[in-house]
C-alpha cells in the first residue's frame, strides 16, 4: 500500500483523496486533529503550515498542510467555534504558526500557552485579520 493510502487507513476514514491546486486533499469529517498529527508523525510526513480562512457565514477553516516525499497533503478542518485542539505537543514545528493564527485571527489552540509574536497592534489577538474585530 502506498504511504498516502495508508494515511486513510490509519485515520479510519471512508473519505477519498482528491487532487486540486497542487494538493492531495482529504476531508476530515470524524477525524480529530490530534489523531491526524499522530498519524502524520507515524508516516514521517513533514509539517508545512496551517492556512486560516475566515468563513463568510461565521467560523474558520484551518487547512493543515504536510509534505510526504514531495507530495503536499492537505486536511481542512472547519471550526464552528473559534477554537481547536493544539498539536504542538505532538508536532513541534507547528509552534509559530499556531501562535500566528491565534494572534491574527483570535483562534484558540487549546492545551498550550502562547508567547506573543508581536504581530498585532494593541493587546487583543485577532485585530489584524479577524473581520469581526477589525
Amino acid at each position, binding site marked *: 500500500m502506498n504511504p498516502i493510502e495508508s494515511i486513510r487507513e490509519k485515520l479510519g476514514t471512508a473519505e477519498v483523496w482528491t487532487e486540486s491546486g497542487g494538493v492531495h486533499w482529504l476531508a476530515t469529517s470524524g477525524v480529530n486533529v490530534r489523531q491526524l498529527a499522530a498519524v502524520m508523525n507515524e508516516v514521517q510526513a513533514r509539517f508545512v*503550515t496551517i492556512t486560516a480562512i475566515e468563513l463568510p457565514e461565521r467560523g474558520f477553516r484551518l*487547512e493543515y498542510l504536510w509534505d510526504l*516525499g514531495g507530495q503536499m497533503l492537505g486536511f481542512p478542518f472547519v471550526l464552528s467555534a473559534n477554537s481547536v485542539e493544539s498539536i504542538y505537543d505532538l508536532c*513541534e514545528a507547528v509552534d*509559530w504558526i499556531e501562535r500566528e493564527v491565534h494572534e491574527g485571527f483570535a483562534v484558540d489552540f487549546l492545551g498550550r500557552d502562547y508567547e506573543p509574536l*508581536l*504581530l498585532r497592534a494593541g493587546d487583543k489577538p485577532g485585530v489584524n485579520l479577524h473581520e469581526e474585530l477589525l
Partner: protein
Amino acid sequence: MSYKIPMGPYHPALEEPYKLDMFCEGETVSDAKLHIGFNFRGIEHLAETRNYIQVIALMERVCGICSNIHTLTLCQAMEQLTGLTPPPRALYIRVVMAELERLHSHVLWAGIAGKLMGFKTMFMTCFALREKVMDVLQVISGNRVNYSMNCIGGVNRDISDPLAVLTMVEQLEREMVRTIIPIFTTSTTARSRCAGIGVLTHEKAISCGVVGPTARASGVAQDLRRAAPYAAYAELEFTVPVETAGDVRARLFVRALEIMESCRILRQALAKMPPGEWHGGDRKAVFSTGTAVSRVEAPRGEVVYSVSWKENSRNPARVHVRTPTFQNMPAIRWMVIGARLADTPLIQASIDPCYSCTDR
C-alpha cells in the same frame, strides 16, 4: 551567576530587527526566547485588497533579497487557478532568475557571516562579487532588487541573448571558484570560528521542520527542485549537497556547494533555453473558485503560498505565505543552548534569517 541578556531588536549583528533574549550561566547560554513582529506590515491582509496584477507587485515586496521567488511562487499558484501554462522558454527564464537570486543571496549571507566572524576581507570580497551577480540580474531584468520578471502565464521579459548572459555567468563562476569557495571551505579563520558551534541535530531538524540549507546541513536531504520539481528543474542535472555535522560550518559548506550547483544549473539553462514565446500573450486570466498551493525552493528553503480565489473576483480571497525563515527561526533556540555568548550572533545568522519575510 545567571543573567538574562537581550540581543536586539536593534543590534549590529542583526540585518533587521528581532529580539533574542538569552538566559546565561556565566558565558554559556542556558536557554533563549525569540520575539518577532517588528516588521509586520499586514501584507497578507493587503493582498486581499489588490487585483491579480497588483498582488504580484505587492508580494514582490515581501522580501528584499528573494523578491523574485515570491512572485514565482504566487504566479505558479495563480496559474493553477487560471489554467494558464507558461511556455517552455519562460520556465527556463524562471530557473535562470531563481538561480541568480540564490547566488546573490548566498554570497550576501557569506559576506555578513564574514563580518560576524571578524573576517572583514571575506565580507568585502563577497559584497564585491554580489554586485557582479546583481549586474547580471540588471542586464536581464533592468532591475537590481525587485526584478518584476514573473507574470501569470510566463515572464515579463525575454533573455534575448542567453549566450551573452552565459559568458557573464562563466566569468562569475571563475571568480567564485577563485575567491569565495576557498574561503568557505578551507580558510582556517572560517573553520575555527564555525566548526562545532550552533549544532542542530538531525532529530531536532526533523522535529522543528526546518527547511533549506539549514535542514540540509543537519543531514535532511530535502530540496523541492528535486522532490517536487517546478519551472524547468526536471530537465536539468544537479546534485543536492547534504552535510551531517549540523553546525555553522556545515551550513557554510552546504551554501558553498550550492553556489557551485547554481552555476551548473545556470550553464545548462542558458545553453538549453528553447526558442519561442516567453509570455502568456493576451490570454485573459479567468480564475476559478478554489485554493491552490505552490512551493518553491528559495535560497533559504521552502516558500509556500496558499492562494484562495472566488470566481469572477478580481482580488484573491486569501493569500497565505509561509516563508523559510518562519520555519527555521524557532530552531535558533536549540542552536544557542550550550553555546558561548560570543558565538550567538554568528549562530543566529547561520540560518540566513530574513525577518521581513517572517513578519510579512
